[in-house]
């Protein structure tokens, strides 16, 4: 009996563990889980199970191990690479009910959380202690820390403070076999090789994080947020390189192009961005007041030197919050432009940003596809967002072509196909642009170390042919 036909027979066993309320099998219920944040992929899971405790997750995984059924772990479903989609023969294991902050150790600056804790909730909980959790994906008001661990999520403030992997120090993990293991230590010093570093970013294919210990940072004493409008995109990108070369490391250095600014300003998230600008930079500096003041002078001078029409510093916390809301809700605001938006993700060396952006805009024009840019300019992490309507089949074809061409441009420039969204199902086909067969084969091998049967989130990240060839006896 195949997985697909066996799925329904799992219902009673799963219900015994989590209760009937938390098992979903009706088509209308499953439909809610057929997509994540990327509109190009849909897949309906065979069954959805939503455990409510660590113990229930363990029991469910052991039950599935016994049944030999593949599963996909999922958080809030905000992913942008179709990494959290399950197929008909697979169980979708939703972890949003595991949403407890288990411990906040203010002296050691550590927090222990369950995987379903929403990213922003952790910083809210630690703020009274003068601490916060630094990685801040744009979806932080909804995305979960378990999902952040799986994807090695980033965010605007990762320029100065690093991405998820730099903040996770220990994990309790359940492997697909049902075995639980503890990786790392609260100190950040591993008991052995760095398996925490290996696990973070493994996209749910090594197992499920049951408990996550993270590093907390002290809230900065002073924060300044600068807004600069530029008459050209090139001027803005050159200002980015100039700021980084100055030695100042902003907490965040974000860019939005003209169409993005106009979409935000026409939405309920209007932030007061200059609508006559071809590009806008949002620069945040944080730290001690004297140091921030000195850095602000350097950054302002660089912005003006590269043609900023004006540089404005947020005068109040409310104004700062509004500037950031516009940036973080920019993807939502793009919904005003077209029915569907693909939030693309790629990275290039900062020094080639101007040329790569020119090429991406040329690609959009050549293929009559609307591309709108909002991205983490400071670390070269592009988000060329493709606006389209999925009901237009000819347009969908062109969108796919442009998506691939953008990846090719970024890789040719020395970059990567993803900086923070992950590979998931969406970018599996692009992995061979970056990695040779031996490296992909080694990745397959490591996956087998954690999950010999390949039941955790199958079919993602590594092209299947790479694993087959590798297993067949090496690649010559």
């Amino acid at each position, binding site marked *: 009996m195949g997985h697909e036909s066996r799925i329904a027979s799992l219902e009673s066993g799963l219900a015994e563990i989590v209760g009937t309320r938390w098992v979903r099998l009706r088509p209308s219920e499953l439909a809610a889980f057929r997509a994540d944040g990327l509109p190009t992929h849909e897949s309906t899971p065979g069954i959805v199970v939503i455990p409510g405790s660590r113990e229930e997750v363990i029991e469910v995984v052991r039950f599935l191990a016994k049944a030999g059924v593949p599963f996909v772990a999922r958080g809030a479903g905000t992913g942008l690479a179709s990494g959290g989609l399950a197929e008909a023969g697979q169980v979708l294991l939703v972890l949003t009910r595991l949403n407890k902050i288990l411990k906040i150790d203010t002296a050691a*600056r550590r927090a222990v959380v369950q995987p379903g804790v929403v990213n922003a909730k952790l910083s809210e909980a630690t703020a009274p202690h003068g601490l916060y959790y630094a990685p801040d994906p744009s979806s932080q008001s909804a995305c979960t820390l378990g999902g952040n661990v799986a994807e090695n999520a980033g965010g605007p403030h990762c320029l100065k403070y690093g991405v998820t992997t730099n903040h996770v120090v220990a994990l309790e993990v359940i492997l697909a076999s049902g075995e639980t293991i503890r990786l790392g230590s609260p100190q950040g010093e591993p008991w052995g090789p760095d398996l925490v570093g290996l696990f973070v970013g493994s996209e749910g294919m090594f197992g499920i994080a049951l408990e996550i210990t993270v590093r907390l940072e002290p809230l900065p004493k002073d924060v300044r947020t600068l807004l600069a409008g530029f008459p050209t995109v090139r001027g803005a990108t050159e200002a980015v390189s100039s700021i980084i070369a100055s030695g100042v490391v902003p907490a965040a250095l974000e860019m939005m192009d003209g169409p993005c600014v106009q979409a935000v300003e026409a939405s309920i998230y209007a932030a007061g961005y200059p609508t006559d600008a071809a590009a806008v930079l949002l620069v945040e500096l944080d730290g001690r007041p004297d140091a921030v003041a000195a850095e602000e002078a350097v950054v302002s001078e660089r912005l003006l030197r590269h043609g900023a029409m004006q540089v404005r510093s947020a005068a109040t916390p409310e104004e700062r919050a509004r500037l950031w809301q516009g940036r973080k809700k920019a993807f939502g605001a793009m919904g005003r432009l077209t029915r569907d938006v693909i939030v693309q993700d790629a990275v290039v060396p900062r020094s080639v940003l101007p040329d790569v952006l020119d090429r991406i805009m040329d690609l959009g024009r050549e293929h009559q596809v609307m591309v709108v840019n909002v991205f983490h300019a400071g670390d070269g992490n592009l988000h060329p967002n493709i606006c389209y309507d999925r009901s237009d089949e000819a347009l969908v074809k062109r969108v796919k072509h442009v998506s691939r061409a953008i990846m090719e441009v970024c890789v040719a420039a020395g970059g990567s196909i993803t900086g923070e969204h992950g590979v998931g199902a969406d970018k599996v086909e692009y992995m061979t642009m970056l990695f040779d067969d031996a490296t992909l084969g080694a990745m397959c091998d490591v996956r087998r170390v954690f999950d010999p049967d390949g039941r955790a989130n199958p079919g993602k990240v590594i092209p299947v042919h790479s694993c087959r060839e590798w297993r067949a006896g090496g690649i010559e």
Partner: protein
Amino acid sequence: MTDRVLAKAREALGADAVGQDPQGRPRVSPESTDGVARAMALAHNEGWTVRIEGRGTWCPPDAPADLVVTTTALDRVNTVAPSDLVATIQAGAAIGAVQRRLSAERVWLAWDSPGRPQRSLGSIVATGTAGPLRHRYGPVRDHLLGCTFVSGDGRIVRPGGTVVKNVAGYDLTKLMAGGFGAFGVITELNLRLRAAPELDRTLLARGGRDALSSAGRDLAEAAIDAVALELLSPAMAADAEWVLALRLAGSADGVRAETERVKQVATLAWSAPSPDQANAIWHGAAHAALAGNVTIRLGVLLPGIDDTLDLLADHLDLGLVAAGAGSGSIRWTGDVPPERLMTVRRIAAGREIPLTLERAPWAYRRTAGHFGLYREGVGTIVARLRDTFDPGHVVQAPLDADG
């Protein structure tokens, strides 16, 4: 056996790349990753044991092996991109030479690992030995964007990339940082650089251990913007007393303002040595880590520093000790029998403190293991990873305690 190994090695790599170490063991020094791959594939196919060697200035190059593979000929700085703050450098390059080269471009690699300036980058990465700068810039692994390594059976693997943000594929580079060579030979590193600071200032305070440790905690709690905050034992600091060494780096105005704040938060008798004197202190402490046969590091949370120093005082000594007064990590160097070290490791484990053996003579490493103790389930994963990357078990890398 030696003649046969030499002959086969010459055949595979050419006569120029093959020689013998001071003990007469066949030693190859390939000039390329492909050369390392040929050497490792040969050893794997022949069933020879292999010692991976850098520049031989950290761990004694004394592991018995049929073949020694050294990275000394892999010492090129391939690319430095100051505007992107990244560099690609071969693993055998010496850290001192690399920093000099980077400094000419007004960038730096924020590493101040223990050992000599001749130490290879590969050695620093393979042992995961971060220095005081980990306080601000994190462990060694946080500086790696990608790498090239050769597995125990001669496969060339290139995880990661050369950009500062990248989540494509599994992060196998992390496995190489602190893996003690068990998963292969690192041949090339893609590194994150920092712009050279406008001002780099060190402040020193001398006194009793407890008072300085307490001041270190005060400074950490006040979130002083230091790049290093280290409590050095008298022998480590070459001083009559314990020394709290604090390093500030950044814009001149920022550093000056932070200097004043340091003095407000911790009312110690701070002195500000000249840049040359400051270099001498930091380099001296890095070099002092070689003054005993054994170096260990313990992962300690900030509130546990004093108790862990007491543990070392009770069971070892407080001769050569450097404690990250802000980051909570302790490095100890000295001479101690492996049995006693393993006792300390067990006691530390009871307090949830991992103890890693960073360097020691081969027989010692073989007895105690670099890690020795694993948490539940981890040993199995590590063993499977070793089987994956070194199926012939040719690499001499004693991660586990003997027996």
